[in-house]
């Protein structure tokens, strides 16, 4: 069970949230000009890092707001959570301190 801190409601169990995939995937600026390959890239292709990963979560049972979480995909450690209008925080020790 992950303990995720909602920027508005504080720490709550993972069961209160929905997962929303990778964060910071911007909609194409000129969608009409995209080739099929570029569309496929935008729609289907996502990073799969081992280590810190920025992803979207939604607090469905609390305030029903979307926000971003930095999570270590290897240890499941929740490193930071931040609102959508905030930039991805710099980690002093990327990947944890172990």
């Amino acid at each position: 069970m992950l303990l995720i801190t909602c920027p508005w409601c504080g720490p709550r169990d993972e069961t209160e949230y929905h997962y929303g995939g990778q964060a910071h995937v911007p909609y194409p600026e000129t969608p009409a000009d995209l080739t099929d390959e570029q569309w496929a890239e935008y729609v289907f292709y996502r990073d799969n890092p081992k280590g810190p990963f920025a992803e979207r979560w939604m607090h469905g049972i609390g305030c029903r707001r979307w926000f971003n979480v930095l999570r270590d995909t290897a240890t499941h450690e929740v490193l930071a959570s931040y609102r959508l209008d905030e930039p991805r925080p710099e980690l002093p020790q990327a990947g944890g301190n172990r």
Partner: protein
Amino acid sequence: MAEPTIDGRVSPLAHLEERMRAAAVTGARGVTLVERPFLTMVDLRVDPASETADRIGKALGAPLPRRCGHTGAAGPHTTLWLGPDEWLVLSRAEASQVTAELKDALGGDPGSVVDVSANRTTLELSGPAARQVLEKGCPLDLHPRAFGPGRAVSTTVGPVAVLLWQVDDTPTYRLFPRSSFADHLARWLVDAMSEYHGPEVP
């Protein structure tokens, strides 16, 4: 206005009233469960930083709570925090009257006021063992050091999403499940209460 009609409403838990009454436990480990149907609930959305929010706070008699878990109470109204720009106004006044008052205060500014009284029903769980009953299925810390009278949060009890509001020190809790989930929640609570009929198992 339309002709007055006979109130033919049936509450979502009318069929379990007898069951809930029979489940009541008295004594040091006492706990009771009742439904308080047809309370007025109005959903309010407005930008919390705007002057409109202040104006609505004045109309309600207490400023809108700005943090998760906080509530504001004045006269017949209690305002519960639902989100950074969303509140639920509970009231003992008529829904049409509360809605009209809030719409007046909102004026033409961005925001919304919607009567959602039929969305949820209200369960009242009260007694010395009430916290223990909830702790069987609620992931939140309900200990007095973290939660107390006048606090209200959205969470789950058992598998059901509820708005949970602690009213007093008895402790008395009010649970607001969506009407269609209320049957399951009431049965879940009746089951959770049953062990308190007997002596405490060491």
